[in-house]
Protein backbone atom coordinates (compact mmCIF):
# COMPACT_ATOMS: atom_id res chain seq x y z
CA UNK A 1 0.00 0.00 0.00
CA UNK A 2 2.59 2.49 -1.05
CA UNK A 3 1.33 5.86 -1.98
CA UNK A 4 3.34 9.04 -2.02
CA UNK A 5 0.42 11.32 -1.29
CA UNK A 6 -0.63 9.82 1.99
CA UNK A 7 1.66 11.71 4.38
CA UNK A 8 1.93 8.89 6.85
CA UNK A 9 -1.82 8.49 7.19
CA UNK A 10 -3.26 4.99 7.24
CA UNK A 11 -6.94 5.82 7.63
CA UNK A 12 -8.65 8.91 6.35
CA UNK A 13 -12.38 9.27 7.02
CA UNK A 14 -14.08 12.47 5.91
CA UNK A 15 -17.72 13.19 6.79
CA UNK A 16 -18.64 9.52 6.71
CA UNK A 17 -22.25 8.57 7.44
CA UNK A 18 -23.86 5.19 7.52
CA UNK A 19 -27.57 4.63 7.66
CA UNK A 20 -29.25 1.26 7.74
CA UNK A 21 -32.67 1.10 6.23
CA UNK A 22 -35.18 2.23 7.16
CA UNK A 23 -33.84 4.97 9.44
CA UNK A 24 -31.02 3.75 11.71
CA UNK A 25 -28.28 6.38 11.74
CA UNK A 26 -25.32 4.24 12.82
CA UNK A 27 -22.69 6.88 11.96
CA UNK A 28 -23.12 10.62 11.31
CA UNK A 29 -20.49 12.79 9.69
CA UNK A 30 -17.56 10.94 11.20
CA UNK A 31 -14.20 12.50 10.31
CA UNK A 32 -10.93 11.15 11.61
CA UNK A 33 -7.39 10.46 10.42
CA UNK A 34 -5.36 7.69 11.94
CA UNK A 35 -1.63 7.67 11.32
CA UNK A 36 0.62 4.86 10.21
CA UNK A 37 1.66 2.75 13.16
CA UNK A 38 -0.80 4.49 15.49
CA UNK A 39 -2.74 2.59 18.10
CA UNK A 40 -6.25 3.94 18.36
CA UNK A 41 -9.00 3.16 20.85
CA UNK A 42 -12.62 3.46 19.83
CA UNK A 43 -15.08 3.33 22.67
CA UNK A 44 -18.77 3.87 23.10
CA UNK A 45 -21.85 2.30 24.50
CA UNK A 46 -23.41 -0.74 22.99
CA UNK A 47 -25.07 0.22 19.74
CA UNK A 48 -22.98 3.38 19.36
CA UNK A 49 -21.67 2.29 15.97
CA UNK A 50 -18.19 0.88 16.73
CA UNK A 51 -18.66 -2.30 14.76
CA UNK A 52 -20.22 -0.35 11.91
CA UNK A 53 -17.15 1.87 11.72
CA UNK A 54 -14.80 -1.11 11.59
CA UNK A 55 -16.92 -2.78 8.93
CA UNK A 56 -16.61 0.33 6.79
CA UNK A 57 -12.84 0.31 7.23
CA UNK A 58 -12.47 -3.26 6.01
CA UNK A 59 -15.01 -2.64 3.21
CA UNK A 60 -17.44 -5.20 4.47
CA UNK A 61 -20.00 -2.45 4.29
CA UNK A 62 -19.96 0.73 2.26
CA UNK A 63 -20.68 4.21 3.64
CA UNK A 64 -23.91 5.97 2.73
CA UNK A 65 -21.97 9.21 2.44
CA UNK A 66 -18.45 10.51 2.75
CA UNK A 67 -14.96 9.41 1.79
CA UNK A 68 -12.85 6.60 3.27
CA UNK A 69 -9.23 6.14 2.26
CA UNK A 70 -6.99 3.36 3.46
CA UNK A 71 -3.32 3.87 2.72
CA UNK A 72 -4.24 6.76 0.43
CA UNK A 73 -6.76 4.84 -1.66
CA UNK A 74 -10.49 5.32 -1.89
CA UNK A 75 -11.81 1.95 -0.80
CA UNK A 76 -15.11 2.40 -2.59
CA UNK A 77 -13.31 2.37 -5.88
CA UNK A 78 -11.58 -0.93 -5.24
CA UNK A 79 -12.89 -4.06 -6.88
CA UNK A 80 -11.73 -7.57 -7.64
CA UNK A 81 -8.05 -8.25 -7.32
CA UNK A 82 -7.17 -4.83 -5.85
CA UNK A 83 -9.80 -5.23 -3.17
CA UNK A 84 -8.51 -8.72 -2.38
CA UNK A 85 -4.93 -7.46 -2.12
CA UNK A 86 -6.01 -4.67 0.19
CA UNK A 87 -7.94 -7.06 2.40
CA UNK A 88 -4.87 -9.28 2.70
CA UNK A 89 -3.16 -6.28 4.30
CA UNK A 90 -5.98 -5.67 6.77
CA UNK A 91 -6.37 -8.10 9.65
CA UNK A 92 -9.77 -8.07 11.29
CA UNK A 93 -10.88 -9.76 14.51
CA UNK A 94 -14.65 -9.67 14.19
CA UNK A 95 -16.93 -9.25 17.15
CA UNK A 96 -18.74 -12.41 16.06
CA UNK A 97 -15.35 -14.08 15.30
CA UNK A 98 -16.39 -15.55 11.92
CA UNK A 99 -14.45 -18.73 12.62
CA UNK A 100 -14.91 -21.96 10.71
CA UNK A 101 -16.29 -24.06 13.53
CA UNK A 102 -15.72 -27.43 11.88
CA UNK A 103 -12.01 -26.78 11.29
CA UNK A 104 -9.11 -27.04 13.66
CA UNK A 105 -7.73 -24.02 15.43
CA UNK A 106 -4.55 -24.18 13.37
CA UNK A 107 -6.51 -24.21 10.11
CA UNK A 108 -8.49 -21.17 11.18
CA UNK A 109 -5.39 -19.19 11.99
CA UNK A 110 -3.65 -20.29 8.81
CA UNK A 111 -6.40 -19.20 6.44
CA UNK A 112 -5.36 -15.55 6.29
CA UNK A 113 -1.83 -16.59 5.33
CA UNK A 114 -2.95 -19.23 2.86
CA UNK A 115 -4.82 -16.74 0.73
CA UNK A 116 -1.64 -14.75 0.24
CA UNK A 117 0.27 -17.92 -0.67
CA UNK A 118 2.71 -18.03 2.21
CA UNK A 119 4.93 -21.09 2.32
CA UNK A 120 3.45 -23.98 4.34
CA UNK A 121 6.49 -24.20 6.67
CA UNK A 122 6.25 -20.50 7.34
CA UNK A 123 2.53 -20.79 8.04
CA UNK A 124 3.06 -23.67 10.48
CA UNK A 125 5.70 -21.80 12.39
CA UNK A 126 3.67 -18.61 12.60
CA UNK A 127 0.58 -20.52 13.78
CA UNK A 128 2.57 -22.24 16.53
CA UNK A 129 4.13 -18.98 17.69
CA UNK A 130 0.83 -17.14 17.83
CA UNK A 131 -0.96 -19.92 19.68
CA UNK A 132 1.82 -19.95 22.22
CA UNK A 133 1.61 -16.20 22.78
CA UNK A 134 -2.15 -16.50 23.29
CA UNK A 135 -1.86 -19.55 25.60
CA UNK A 136 -3.61 -21.85 23.11
CA UNK A 137 -0.75 -24.24 22.33
CA UNK A 138 -2.68 -27.28 23.56
CA UNK A 139 -5.63 -26.35 21.30
CA UNK A 140 -3.59 -26.49 18.08
CA UNK A 141 -5.55 -29.41 16.65
CA UNK A 142 -8.80 -28.89 18.54
CA UNK A 143 -12.00 -28.40 16.56
CA UNK A 144 -12.77 -24.71 16.83
CA UNK A 145 -16.46 -25.21 17.52
CA UNK A 146 -15.62 -27.05 20.72
CA UNK A 147 -13.68 -24.18 22.26
CA UNK A 148 -14.97 -21.77 24.87
CA UNK A 149 -15.92 -18.27 23.75
CA UNK A 150 -12.81 -16.79 25.27
CA UNK A 151 -10.66 -19.28 23.40
CA UNK A 152 -12.48 -18.64 20.15
CA UNK A 153 -11.96 -14.94 20.64
CA UNK A 154 -8.22 -15.46 20.82
CA UNK A 155 -8.25 -17.69 17.75
CA UNK A 156 -10.00 -14.89 15.88
CA UNK A 157 -7.34 -12.47 17.03
CA UNK A 158 -4.54 -14.84 16.04
CA UNK A 159 -6.02 -15.07 12.56
CA UNK A 160 -6.26 -11.29 12.33
CA UNK A 161 -2.58 -10.71 13.05
CA UNK A 162 -1.15 -13.86 11.46
CA UNK A 163 -0.47 -12.46 8.01
CA UNK A 164 1.40 -9.46 9.51
CA UNK A 165 -1.11 -6.93 8.16
CA UNK A 166 -0.35 -3.22 8.07
CA UNK A 167 -3.75 -2.43 9.52
CA UNK A 168 -5.30 -4.42 12.34
CA UNK A 169 -8.93 -3.89 13.31
CA UNK A 170 -10.10 -5.59 16.48
CA UNK A 171 -13.67 -5.52 17.70
CA UNK A 172 -14.11 -6.15 21.40
CA UNK A 173 -10.98 -8.32 21.77
CA UNK A 174 -11.27 -8.93 25.49
CA UNK A 175 -14.99 -9.29 26.08
CA UNK A 176 -14.80 -12.83 27.38
CA UNK A 177 -11.35 -12.83 28.95
CA UNK A 178 -9.89 -12.73 32.46
CA UNK A 179 -7.30 -10.12 33.43
CA UNK A 180 -4.24 -12.28 32.75
CA UNK A 181 -5.39 -13.35 29.30
CA UNK A 182 -6.47 -9.80 28.53
CA UNK A 183 -2.93 -8.70 29.29
CA UNK A 184 -1.55 -11.33 26.87
CA UNK A 185 -3.88 -10.10 24.15
CA UNK A 186 -2.88 -6.49 24.68
CA UNK A 187 0.77 -7.48 24.67
CA UNK A 188 0.35 -9.14 21.30
CA UNK A 189 -1.43 -6.09 19.86
CA UNK A 190 1.22 -3.78 21.23
CA UNK A 191 3.90 -5.93 19.70
CA UNK A 192 2.22 -5.74 16.29
CA UNK A 193 1.88 -2.00 16.74
CA UNK A 194 5.55 -1.64 17.64
CA UNK A 195 6.55 -3.46 14.49
CA UNK A 196 4.68 -0.91 12.42
CA UNK A 197 1.04 -1.94 12.16
CA UNK A 198 -1.76 0.53 12.66
CA UNK A 199 -4.09 -0.93 15.29
CA UNK A 200 -7.68 0.14 15.84
CA UNK A 201 -9.35 -1.36 18.91
CA UNK A 202 -13.08 -1.04 19.43
CA UNK A 203 -13.98 -1.80 23.03
CA UNK A 204 -15.98 -0.87 26.06
CA UNK A 205 -13.56 -2.62 28.36
CA UNK A 206 -12.38 0.33 30.43
CA UNK A 207 -9.45 -1.60 31.85
CA UNK A 208 -7.57 -1.87 28.58
CA UNK A 209 -7.55 1.83 27.68
CA UNK A 210 -7.51 3.41 31.14
CA UNK A 211 -3.72 3.77 31.32
CA UNK A 212 -2.91 3.85 27.64
CA UNK A 213 -0.80 6.63 26.18
CA UNK A 214 -2.69 6.30 22.89
CA UNK A 215 -5.53 8.34 21.46
CA UNK A 216 -9.02 7.44 22.61
CA UNK A 217 -12.22 8.51 20.86
CA UNK A 218 -15.78 7.77 21.75
CA UNK A 219 -18.79 7.21 19.56
CA UNK A 220 -22.00 8.69 20.92
CA UNK A 221 -25.17 8.47 18.84
CA UNK A 222 -23.10 7.86 15.75
CA UNK A 223 -20.89 10.93 16.30
CA UNK A 224 -17.20 10.75 17.14
CA UNK A 225 -15.85 12.66 20.17
CA UNK A 226 -12.28 12.92 21.38
CA UNK A 227 -11.79 11.49 24.86
CA UNK A 228 -8.04 11.85 25.21
CA UNK A 229 -5.27 12.89 22.83
CA UNK A 230 -2.48 10.37 22.50
CA UNK A 231 0.83 11.22 24.11
CA UNK A 232 2.90 8.42 22.70
CA UNK A 233 4.22 9.86 19.43
Amino acid at each position, binding site marked *: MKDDNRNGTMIEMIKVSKTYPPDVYALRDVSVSIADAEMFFLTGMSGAGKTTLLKLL*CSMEYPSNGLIEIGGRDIQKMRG*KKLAKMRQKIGVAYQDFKLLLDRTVAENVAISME*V*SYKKPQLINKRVKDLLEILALTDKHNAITGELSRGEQQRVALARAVANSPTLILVDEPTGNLDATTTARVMQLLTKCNNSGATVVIATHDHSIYRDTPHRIMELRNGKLHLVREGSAQ
Partner: protein
Amino acid sequence: MNFWFAVLRQVGRNIRQTWPSQFMTFLTVSLSVLIFAFFYLVYNNMLNVGNKLGDDLQLIVYLEEEPGIEMQEQLRRKILAFDEVENIRFISKLEAYERFANQLGENRDVLNDMPRDFLPASIEVVPMKDLRSLSQVKLFSDYLSKLPGTLKVQYGQDWIERFYYFTRLLSIIVLLSGGLLILTSVFMVSYTIRLTILGRQAELELLKLVGATNNYIRTPFLIEGILQGLFGSTLGIISLFSLFQWIKIKFSGPGILSLFEFSFFQPQTIFTILVISIVLCAVGSYSSMQKFLRM
Protein backbone atom coordinates in the same frame (compact mmCIF):
# COMPACT_ATOMS: atom_id res chain seq x y z
CA MET B 1 3.66 -23.52 -6.21
CA ASN B 2 1.98 -22.42 -3.01
CA PHE B 3 -1.02 -21.49 -5.10
CA TRP B 4 -1.36 -25.02 -6.40
CA PHE B 5 -0.75 -26.47 -2.98
CA ALA B 6 -3.60 -24.38 -1.59
CA VAL B 7 -5.85 -25.18 -4.54
CA LEU B 8 -5.28 -28.94 -4.37
CA ARG B 9 -5.90 -29.03 -0.65
CA GLN B 10 -9.18 -27.24 -1.26
CA VAL B 11 -10.13 -29.73 -3.97
CA GLY B 12 -9.45 -32.56 -1.54
CA ARG B 13 -11.66 -30.93 1.10
CA ASN B 14 -14.49 -30.39 -1.36
CA ILE B 15 -14.41 -33.97 -2.54
CA ARG B 16 -14.26 -35.33 0.98
CA GLN B 17 -17.20 -33.20 2.01
CA THR B 18 -19.53 -33.77 -0.95
CA TRP B 19 -18.39 -37.06 -2.42
CA PRO B 20 -21.86 -38.65 -2.74
CA SER B 21 -23.11 -35.95 -5.07
CA GLN B 22 -19.73 -35.77 -6.76
CA PHE B 23 -19.96 -39.48 -7.41
CA MET B 24 -23.47 -39.18 -8.83
CA THR B 25 -22.28 -36.45 -11.17
CA PHE B 26 -19.35 -38.55 -12.22
CA LEU B 27 -21.68 -41.45 -13.06
CA THR B 28 -24.09 -39.21 -14.93
CA VAL B 29 -21.33 -37.67 -16.99
CA SER B 30 -19.90 -41.07 -17.87
CA LEU B 31 -23.32 -42.44 -18.74
CA SER B 32 -24.08 -39.57 -21.07
CA VAL B 33 -20.67 -39.87 -22.68
CA LEU B 34 -21.35 -43.58 -23.11
CA ILE B 35 -24.72 -42.98 -24.76
CA PHE B 36 -23.41 -40.32 -27.07
CA ALA B 37 -20.26 -42.22 -27.99
CA PHE B 38 -22.26 -45.39 -28.60
CA PHE B 39 -24.51 -43.79 -31.19
CA TYR B 40 -21.64 -41.92 -32.68
CA LEU B 41 -19.67 -45.12 -33.06
CA VAL B 42 -22.56 -46.93 -34.71
CA TYR B 43 -23.09 -43.97 -36.99
CA ASN B 44 -19.43 -43.87 -37.92
CA ASN B 45 -19.41 -47.52 -38.82
CA MET B 46 -22.61 -47.18 -40.83
CA LEU B 47 -20.96 -44.38 -42.75
CA ASN B 48 -18.00 -46.59 -43.53
CA VAL B 49 -20.22 -49.39 -44.73
CA GLY B 50 -22.23 -46.86 -46.69
CA ASN B 51 -19.16 -45.52 -48.38
CA LYS B 52 -18.31 -48.95 -49.64
CA LEU B 53 -21.85 -49.52 -50.86
CA GLY B 54 -22.15 -46.08 -52.34
CA ASP B 55 -18.95 -46.29 -54.32
CA ASP B 56 -20.52 -48.05 -57.29
CA LEU B 57 -24.00 -46.68 -56.94
CA GLN B 58 -25.32 -45.10 -60.10
CA LEU B 59 -28.67 -44.60 -61.75
CA ILE B 60 -29.07 -45.65 -65.35
CA VAL B 61 -31.80 -43.89 -67.29
CA TYR B 62 -32.69 -45.74 -70.50
CA LEU B 63 -33.93 -43.46 -73.23
CA GLU B 64 -36.40 -44.06 -76.01
CA GLU B 65 -34.12 -42.58 -78.60
CA GLU B 66 -30.68 -41.18 -79.05
CA PRO B 67 -30.68 -37.57 -77.74
CA GLY B 68 -29.14 -34.84 -79.86
CA ILE B 69 -26.69 -32.31 -78.42
CA GLU B 70 -29.46 -29.88 -77.62
CA MET B 71 -31.61 -32.57 -76.07
CA GLN B 72 -28.64 -33.70 -73.94
CA GLU B 73 -28.32 -30.20 -72.55
CA GLN B 74 -32.04 -30.10 -71.77
CA LEU B 75 -31.88 -33.42 -69.97
CA ARG B 76 -28.80 -32.41 -68.06
CA ARG B 77 -30.54 -29.25 -66.87
CA LYS B 78 -33.57 -31.26 -65.85
CA ILE B 79 -31.48 -33.70 -63.85
CA LEU B 80 -29.57 -30.95 -62.09
CA ALA B 81 -32.88 -29.28 -61.29
CA PHE B 82 -33.59 -32.12 -58.88
CA ASP B 83 -30.26 -32.21 -57.14
CA GLU B 84 -26.58 -31.75 -57.59
CA VAL B 85 -24.93 -34.88 -58.90
CA GLU B 86 -21.39 -36.03 -59.10
CA ASN B 87 -21.42 -37.00 -62.73
CA ILE B 88 -23.72 -37.30 -65.74
CA ARG B 89 -22.67 -39.36 -68.74
CA PHE B 90 -24.55 -39.91 -71.95
CA ILE B 91 -24.11 -43.31 -73.51
CA SER B 92 -25.06 -43.47 -77.15
CA LYS B 93 -26.47 -46.61 -78.74
CA LEU B 94 -23.13 -47.21 -80.37
CA GLU B 95 -21.22 -46.87 -77.13
CA ALA B 96 -23.62 -49.23 -75.46
CA TYR B 97 -23.01 -51.73 -78.23
CA GLU B 98 -19.23 -51.38 -77.94
CA ARG B 99 -19.33 -51.83 -74.23
CA PHE B 100 -21.49 -54.88 -74.44
CA ALA B 101 -19.25 -56.33 -77.10
CA ASN B 102 -16.20 -55.73 -74.96
CA GLN B 103 -17.91 -57.41 -72.06
CA LEU B 104 -18.56 -60.45 -74.20
CA GLY B 105 -14.88 -60.58 -75.14
CA GLU B 106 -14.15 -63.64 -77.22
CA ASN B 107 -17.83 -64.34 -77.64
CA ARG B 108 -18.53 -61.08 -79.39
CA ASP B 109 -19.26 -63.02 -82.57
CA VAL B 110 -22.78 -63.64 -81.28
CA LEU B 111 -23.49 -60.00 -81.95
CA ASN B 112 -22.55 -60.24 -85.58
CA ASP B 113 -26.12 -60.62 -86.71
CA MET B 114 -27.50 -57.88 -84.51
CA PRO B 115 -27.97 -54.33 -85.75
CA ARG B 116 -25.44 -52.02 -84.09
CA ASP B 117 -28.18 -49.91 -82.55
CA PHE B 118 -30.19 -52.60 -80.88
CA LEU B 119 -29.28 -51.38 -77.39
CA PRO B 120 -31.04 -48.24 -76.11
CA ALA B 121 -29.13 -45.04 -75.44
CA SER B 122 -28.89 -44.16 -71.76
CA ILE B 123 -27.72 -41.63 -69.20
CA GLU B 124 -25.54 -42.71 -66.28
CA VAL B 125 -26.12 -40.50 -63.27
CA VAL B 126 -23.71 -40.79 -60.35
CA PRO B 127 -25.30 -39.17 -57.31
CA MET B 128 -23.27 -37.15 -54.82
CA LYS B 129 -21.68 -39.30 -52.12
CA ASP B 130 -23.42 -37.66 -49.25
CA LEU B 131 -26.15 -38.85 -46.98
CA ARG B 132 -28.77 -36.43 -48.14
CA SER B 133 -28.45 -37.43 -51.76
CA LEU B 134 -28.02 -41.11 -51.08
CA SER B 135 -31.01 -41.32 -48.82
CA GLN B 136 -33.32 -40.11 -51.55
CA VAL B 137 -32.20 -42.34 -54.36
CA LYS B 138 -35.73 -43.66 -54.71
CA LEU B 139 -37.19 -40.19 -55.07
CA PHE B 140 -34.49 -39.35 -57.56
CA SER B 141 -35.22 -42.39 -59.62
CA ASP B 142 -38.95 -41.60 -59.63
CA TYR B 143 -38.11 -38.14 -60.78
CA LEU B 144 -35.87 -39.38 -63.55
CA SER B 145 -38.42 -41.89 -64.78
CA LYS B 146 -40.88 -39.06 -65.32
CA LEU B 147 -38.52 -37.18 -67.61
CA PRO B 148 -39.85 -37.13 -71.16
CA GLY B 149 -38.44 -39.86 -73.35
CA THR B 150 -37.41 -42.17 -70.51
CA LEU B 151 -37.94 -45.87 -70.92
CA LYS B 152 -37.05 -46.89 -67.41
CA VAL B 153 -34.64 -46.17 -64.61
CA GLN B 154 -32.46 -48.76 -63.04
CA TYR B 155 -30.32 -48.55 -59.97
CA GLY B 156 -28.65 -51.45 -58.30
CA GLN B 157 -29.63 -52.40 -54.82
CA ASP B 158 -32.84 -50.76 -53.81
CA TRP B 159 -32.22 -51.56 -50.19
CA ILE B 160 -29.40 -49.06 -50.30
CA GLU B 161 -31.94 -46.36 -49.98
CA ARG B 162 -33.38 -47.79 -46.82
CA PHE B 163 -29.87 -48.16 -45.49
CA TYR B 164 -29.09 -44.52 -46.06
CA TYR B 165 -32.41 -43.45 -44.68
CA PHE B 166 -31.57 -45.33 -41.51
CA THR B 167 -28.13 -43.76 -41.39
CA ARG B 168 -29.70 -40.35 -41.65
CA LEU B 169 -32.04 -41.16 -38.84
CA LEU B 170 -29.05 -42.27 -36.85
CA SER B 171 -27.33 -38.96 -37.42
CA ILE B 172 -30.30 -37.28 -35.77
CA ILE B 173 -29.98 -39.62 -32.79
CA VAL B 174 -26.29 -38.76 -32.59
CA LEU B 175 -27.18 -35.08 -32.50
CA LEU B 176 -29.81 -35.65 -29.83
CA SER B 177 -27.51 -37.69 -27.63
CA GLY B 178 -24.83 -35.05 -28.15
CA GLY B 179 -27.33 -32.50 -26.88
CA LEU B 180 -28.05 -34.77 -23.94
CA LEU B 181 -24.36 -34.97 -23.20
CA ILE B 182 -24.06 -31.20 -23.21
CA LEU B 183 -27.09 -30.69 -20.99
CA THR B 184 -26.22 -33.35 -18.43
CA SER B 185 -22.59 -32.47 -18.06
CA VAL B 186 -23.11 -28.73 -17.85
CA PHE B 187 -26.14 -28.88 -15.58
CA MET B 188 -25.14 -31.76 -13.36
CA VAL B 189 -21.72 -30.32 -12.75
CA SER B 190 -23.02 -26.84 -12.14
CA TYR B 191 -25.62 -28.33 -9.81
CA THR B 192 -23.12 -30.26 -7.70
CA ILE B 193 -20.80 -27.29 -7.56
CA ARG B 194 -23.72 -25.18 -6.39
CA LEU B 195 -24.40 -27.74 -3.66
CA THR B 196 -20.78 -27.54 -2.61
CA ILE B 197 -20.93 -23.77 -2.59
CA LEU B 198 -24.05 -23.79 -0.43
CA GLY B 199 -22.42 -26.22 1.98
CA ARG B 200 -19.37 -24.00 2.27
CA GLN B 201 -20.96 -20.59 2.05
CA ALA B 202 -19.56 -19.46 5.39
CA GLU B 203 -16.06 -20.45 4.42
CA LEU B 204 -16.22 -18.87 0.98
CA GLU B 205 -17.54 -15.63 2.46
CA LEU B 206 -14.71 -15.64 4.96
CA LEU B 207 -12.17 -16.30 2.21
CA LYS B 208 -13.39 -13.16 0.47
CA LEU B 209 -13.08 -11.19 3.69
CA VAL B 210 -9.51 -12.24 4.36
CA GLY B 211 -8.56 -11.23 0.85
CA ALA B 212 -8.71 -14.37 -1.26
CA THR B 213 -8.64 -13.49 -4.94
CA ASN B 214 -11.40 -14.77 -7.18
CA ASN B 215 -8.90 -17.17 -8.74
CA TYR B 216 -8.08 -18.62 -5.34
CA ILE B 217 -11.76 -19.27 -4.69
CA ARG B 218 -12.64 -20.34 -8.22
CA THR B 219 -9.77 -22.58 -9.27
CA PRO B 220 -10.55 -25.53 -6.94
CA PHE B 221 -14.08 -25.69 -8.31
CA LEU B 222 -12.85 -25.43 -11.86
CA ILE B 223 -10.47 -28.31 -11.21
CA GLU B 224 -13.32 -30.29 -9.74
CA GLY B 225 -15.32 -29.74 -12.93
CA ILE B 226 -12.34 -30.69 -15.06
CA LEU B 227 -11.82 -33.87 -13.03
CA GLN B 228 -15.50 -34.74 -13.40
CA GLY B 229 -15.20 -34.30 -17.15
CA LEU B 230 -11.94 -36.23 -17.40
CA PHE B 231 -12.90 -39.20 -15.25
CA GLY B 232 -16.51 -39.27 -16.39
CA SER B 233 -15.65 -39.33 -20.08
CA THR B 234 -12.80 -41.79 -19.56
CA LEU B 235 -15.12 -44.21 -17.82
CA GLY B 236 -17.73 -43.69 -20.55
CA ILE B 237 -15.22 -44.44 -23.31
CA ILE B 238 -13.79 -47.44 -21.47
CA SER B 239 -17.28 -48.90 -20.99
CA LEU B 240 -18.02 -48.39 -24.65
CA PHE B 241 -14.77 -50.06 -25.62
CA SER B 242 -15.57 -53.08 -23.44
CA LEU B 243 -19.02 -53.25 -24.98
CA PHE B 244 -17.48 -53.01 -28.43
CA GLN B 245 -15.03 -55.82 -27.73
CA TRP B 246 -17.77 -57.97 -26.28
CA ILE B 247 -19.99 -57.52 -29.34
CA LYS B 248 -17.07 -58.20 -31.62
CA ILE B 249 -16.24 -61.48 -29.92
CA LYS B 250 -19.88 -62.47 -29.64
CA PHE B 251 -20.60 -61.95 -33.33
CA SER B 252 -17.24 -62.80 -34.78
CA GLY B 253 -18.50 -65.97 -36.50
CA PRO B 254 -19.80 -65.95 -40.05
CA GLY B 255 -22.80 -63.67 -40.36
CA ILE B 256 -23.85 -60.33 -41.69
CA LEU B 257 -21.74 -58.47 -39.21
CA SER B 258 -18.58 -60.12 -40.31
CA LEU B 259 -19.13 -58.88 -43.87
CA PHE B 260 -18.06 -55.46 -42.75
CA GLU B 261 -15.15 -54.54 -40.66
CA PHE B 262 -16.19 -52.70 -37.52
CA SER B 263 -13.70 -50.34 -36.03
CA PHE B 264 -13.46 -48.41 -32.80
CA PHE B 265 -12.79 -44.67 -32.67
CA GLN B 266 -9.54 -43.26 -33.89
CA PRO B 267 -7.34 -41.92 -31.07
CA GLN B 268 -8.04 -38.36 -32.24
CA THR B 269 -11.79 -38.93 -31.89
CA ILE B 270 -11.37 -40.29 -28.37
CA PHE B 271 -9.19 -37.34 -27.51
CA THR B 272 -11.77 -34.93 -28.91
CA ILE B 273 -14.58 -36.52 -26.91
CA LEU B 274 -12.49 -36.28 -23.73
CA VAL B 275 -11.59 -32.67 -24.36
CA ILE B 276 -15.16 -31.67 -25.14
CA SER B 277 -16.47 -33.35 -21.97
CA ILE B 278 -13.81 -31.63 -19.92
CA VAL B 279 -14.63 -28.27 -21.42
CA LEU B 280 -18.35 -28.76 -20.84
CA CYS B 281 -17.86 -29.72 -17.21
CA ALA B 282 -15.52 -26.81 -16.66
CA VAL B 283 -18.11 -24.49 -18.16
CA GLY B 284 -20.73 -25.88 -15.77
CA SER B 285 -18.53 -25.32 -12.77
CA TYR B 286 -17.41 -21.89 -13.92
CA SER B 287 -20.97 -20.70 -14.39
CA SER B 288 -22.04 -21.59 -10.84
CA MET B 289 -18.88 -20.09 -9.46
CA GLN B 290 -19.46 -16.82 -11.29
CA LYS B 291 -22.96 -16.63 -9.83
CA PHE B 292 -21.49 -16.92 -6.36
CA LEU B 293 -18.62 -14.51 -6.90
CA ARG B 294 -20.93 -11.83 -8.23
CA MET B 295 -22.89 -11.83 -4.96
